[in-house]
């Protein structure tokens, strides 16, 4: 935060403590008129005067210089970037220091808007790809078709053998019962959705919830054998289906293998030392870059480590594993933005692809991806490609540092409002034209 605004912060803190300007000036050993100039940001402040004022206000100097409100400023800047009308961006810090209540309210509304947007994205994704809904709708339409055709016959055909007539009546009864069961199943499904916010419909959903419960880190697997994987899975009540346990076992065995090749302590040390340079880490630990991506995404949560997100897809685009992070949603069932590096990497396996991404909400992320060929035993020499993408929040300047233009991306066409996109597949629910 620029020092010119330290004055505003001093005034705000003074007023919060109920101190008069003259009192603070006297206790800090300066004149009231000089403090007045400082508080209106007309005089710079540093050195002893700053120290004395901080002491009287019982604050650390850093609190006055940096401000505890930088996160709020950032949130307001994000909100302003999405505004249609011109916003006085150069006065955002003044807004925060002079009207913290209003600033907080705007930031809260921004967060709420983001939440709603993510809910819309998740629901749209679910409605489009949820296997339960897709199958149910197909069955409902089949039943309705049978009922419509059969009832049409019964009302339109005058002469019909009694046996045939009875058969058609039975068919209508059967189909209406099926429709009734389907309706109940769907109502119960939506009730569950409304109550829990989340409905686990696929084995991958179960695995994802399991990983989230463990914050994508398993201290017990850092130095243990495969029996620990099985024990973790057996102890988990959330992995209900056989398929989910099978997928979870694959994920955890890979985790364990990665942990063996990149032991936590030396890996963390090297990661911090290299500034999370995945190429250097891969060379140092003699592993492929995608293994480093997984290891970084599955580090212990918290601390000073960046929040890393991860997505793993196969050649069909099907999502095999995902770890979303705030601001960067991931599709549940594939069909994401084709510009994402995770897909770009599939065009040249074993070559890393990096990009600085700008989302529709004007958030910036750095992403790197690598695809690898996976052998398929007993598949007549066929190979499958699997692509892994690691990503984390970044700054616009990172694109300059990388010497690449910002890459504008979305989540998926259906819910992406970006206009004039050259790779749009289908219209958006936000009505962006094809």
């Amino acid at each position, binding site marked *: 935060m620029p020092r010119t605004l330290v004055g505003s912060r001093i005034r705000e803190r003074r007023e919060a403590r109920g101190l008069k300007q003259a009192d603070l000036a006297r206790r800090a050993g300066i004149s009231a008129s000089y403090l007045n100039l400082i508080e209106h940001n007309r005089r710079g402040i540093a050195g002893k005067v700053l120290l004395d004022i901080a002491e009287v206000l019982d604050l650390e100097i850093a609190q006055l210089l940096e401000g505890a409100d930088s996160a709020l400023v950032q949130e307001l800047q994000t909100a302003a970037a999405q505004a249609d009308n011109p916003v006085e961006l150069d006065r955002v810090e003044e807004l925060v220091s002079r009207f913290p209540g209003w600033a907080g309210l705007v930031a809260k509304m921004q967060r709420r808007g983001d939440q709603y947007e993510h809910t819309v994205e998740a629901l749209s994704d679910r409605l489009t790809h949820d296997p339960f809904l897709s199958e149910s709708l*197909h069955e409902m339409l*089949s039943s309705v078709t049978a009922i419509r*055709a059969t009832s049409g016959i019964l009302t339109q055909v005058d002469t019909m053998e009694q046996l*045939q007539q009875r058969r058609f009546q039975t*068919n209508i009864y059967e189909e209406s019962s099926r429709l009734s069961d389907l309706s109940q199943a769907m109502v119960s499904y939506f009730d569950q959705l409304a109550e829990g916010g989340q409905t686990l419909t696929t084995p991958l959903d179960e695995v994802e919830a399991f990983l989230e419960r463990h914050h994508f880190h398993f201290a017990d697997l850092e130095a243990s054998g495969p029996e620990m994987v099985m024990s973790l899975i057996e102890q988990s009540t959330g992995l209900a289906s056989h398929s989910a346990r099978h997928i979870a076992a694959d994920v955890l065995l890979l985790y364990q293998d990665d942990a063996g090749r990149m032991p936590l302590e030396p890996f963390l040390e090297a990661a911090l030392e290299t500034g999370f340079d995945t190429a250097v880490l891969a060379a140092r630990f003699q592993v492929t870059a995608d293994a480093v991506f997984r290891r970084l995404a599955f580090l212990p949560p918290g601390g000073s480590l960046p929040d890393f997100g991860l997505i793993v897809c196969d050649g069909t685009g099907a999502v095999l594993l995902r770890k979303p992070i705030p601001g960067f949603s991931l599709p549940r069932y594939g069909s994401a933005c084709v510009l994402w590096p995770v897909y770009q990497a599939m065009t040249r396996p074993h070559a890393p692809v990096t990009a600085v991404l700008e989302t529709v909400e004007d958030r910036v992320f750095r992403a790197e991806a690598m695809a690898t060929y996976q052998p398929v035993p007993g598949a007549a020499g066929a190979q499958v490609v699997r692509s892994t993408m690691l990503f984390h929040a970044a700054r616009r300047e990172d694109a300059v540092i990388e010497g690449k233009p910002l890459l504008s991306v979305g989540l998926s066409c259906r819910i992406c409002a970006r206009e004039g996109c050259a790779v749009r597949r289908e219209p958006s629910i936000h009505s962006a034209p094809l």
Partner: protein
Amino acid sequence: MGKHVLLIEDEPNIIEAISFILRQDGWRVTTHSDGASAASIIEKSAPDLLVLDVMLPGKSGFEILRDLRATDATRELPVLMLTAKGQTKDREEALALGVSVFMTKPFSNKEMLAAVRELAS
């Protein structure tokens, strides 16, 4: 005896209703419910017209249509495709593969009959 319509559909009650409607209209109707063996049935029975569902066990209606259009004997066979998936991309895919008429479920008996009559004329 009327022209031969082969109906490939896996929902028994839809099969029964469509068969009845077409027979009432003078068509000779045979039916089949499996996608995987559909090609050989079409080849053997040589229908004048095919009513084909999209979602079939073993092989989808799209795949069957693709094979039909790649075979000399069935390249021109009129195909009425029925689907519960009414999305634009499905319609576009069917048209690209050479479908004669694409109809979304649920449809009225009148619509279906009109489409069959038009295809056979």
